[in-house]
């Protein structure tokens, strides 16, 4: 299988805080990678560098072999113009912990916004796409509702539909169920499992170990800005090689 996401030796600091310390990660097309790790280990920052919401300080991020945020000539990296970065972002869906739906737009307008304005696709085509996507996340009847009138789980499902509307090559999930009431977590995980089954490439930061065990092809364990170990779920979750992985999994299970 071909490589979809490739990170090489990525470093990122916030002031004196060295958040990512040389992270390299490769995700194949159709693969579901779940990133686990204690809070502050750099998981979210890692996701945010992948769609250039955070600029990396050194190292490279590639999507399908295309360098993100920079153009390489010889041994120099030229920062790309914003328009180019925006075009690259349309290949990457991002689902936020706090949904970040646009409260003044209806569900339909939320999902249709990016295909219309970022991809300039024709209105009729986008309408059909939105209907299909809302149906897929089970919210077809909420198309004309405003986000505030929906439950957290419904809002996150709309947010997933919104991310999918770009027909991205990879979808990044940043703790998608952490802001939800416990009884609403299941419906969001169901939608994500459905995506995984249909071959969507996904990188998921989560604390849902059972989701990792059931859905992930690869589990990545991060600590203190580095990847400590990665592998198939049984290997990492049941017989971790690192003491810190073992301690973390013991705590969340």
């Amino acid at each position, binding site marked *: 299988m071909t490589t979809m996401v490739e990170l090489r030796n990525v470093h990122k600091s916030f002031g004196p805080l060295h958040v990512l310390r040389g992270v390299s990660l490769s995700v194949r097309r159709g693969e579901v990678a779940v990133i686990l790790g204690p809070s502050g280990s750099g998981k979210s920052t890692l996701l945010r560098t992948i769609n250039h919401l955070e600029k990396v300080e050194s190292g490279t991020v590639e999507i399908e072999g295309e360098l993100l945020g920079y153009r390489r000539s010889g041994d120099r990296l030229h920062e790309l113009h914003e328009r180019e970065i925006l075009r*690259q972002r*349309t290949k990457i869906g991002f689902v*936020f912990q706090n949904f970040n739906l646009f*409260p*003044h*737009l209806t569900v339909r307008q939320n999902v249709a916004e*990016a295909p219309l304005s970022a991809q300039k696709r024709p209105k009729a085509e986008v309408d059909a796409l939105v209907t299909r996507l809302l149906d897929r996340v089970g919210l077809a009847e909420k198309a004309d509702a405003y986000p505030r009138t929906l439950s957290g789980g419904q809002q996150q499902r709309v947010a997933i539909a919104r991310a999918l509307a770009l027909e991205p090559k990879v979808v990044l999930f940043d703790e998608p169920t952490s802001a939800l009431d416990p009884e609403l977590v299941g419906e969001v995980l169901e939608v994500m499992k459905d995506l995984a089954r249909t071959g969507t490439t996904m990188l998921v930061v989560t604390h849902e170990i059972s989701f990792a065990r059931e859905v992930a092809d690869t589990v990545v364990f991060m600590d203190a800005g580095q990847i400590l170990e990665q592998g198939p779920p049984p290997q990492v979750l049941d017989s971790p090689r690192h003491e810190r992985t073992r301690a973390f999994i013991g705590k969340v299970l």
Partner: protein
Amino acid sequence: MTLSGTQAAPAVQRDEPSLRVVPTRHPLRWAATALALLLLAMAANSLATNPAWEWEVVGEYLFAPSVLRSLVLTMELTALGIVLGFALGTVLALMRLSRNRLLSSVAWAYVWLFRSVPLILQLLFWYNLALLYPRLSFGVPFGPGFFDIGTMDLIGPLTAAALGLALHQAAYAAEIVRGGLLSVDPGQREAAAALGIPRARRLFRIILPQAMRTIVPNAGNEIIGLVKGTSVVYIMALPELFYQVQVIYMRNGRVMALLLVAAVWYLVLTTALSVVQYYVERHYGRGRS
């Protein structure tokens, strides 16, 4: 909230007589209401019976052509001040929030200067600009000029008044718009960026409509303030509402009646604007209960 609780409720009804609720008495509130009514009645009586109010003169001048013309000028000045003021104010707010230090400093300095100097002084300054620059020249900066024009010809009293009001208003508008932009959750900006939505579209489609919820009530204050603020331009002898009623009462001596005429029209204008504000607020409040 427990099941046993809901089952117990009928039992209470069976065993005990139904209880009547007696509201708390508020004797002081009743006294205050009576006093207020008394004062209102006295005020109404005096308005109606004191002939010095000269209501027939008010009626005579309320729709006089010269008063209506001056009312139109007041509305024009308000509109120019608000539209130009908020347009420039929005640019200043964006400059102020820019990561470019020079742009942000220039915007800060503008607000500092135009908020600090009294409006009446600013108006006189623009009115007398010709004393400073008798002729204005247009051309290449520091280079040759293409044409020049007498300052007095370009900036008459009307232009000076509109310019003065707009530039002064822009300083306040900048702060109102900036506050509105800052009130929007940063996650909104981030989500729009992550979706690849172009920068201008992000501002006008995602951020500003949400900022409007904070901007509109403050802007409403400013607009109503400006309606009345236009009366300051009477010092430039522009025949707006306040200047016009002065001209009339200087001639016929009916001071109170003509001040009332102006007051009535200011009331009408600000009431109309308040109604508009209500609907604009409702529009931008959609999606929030």
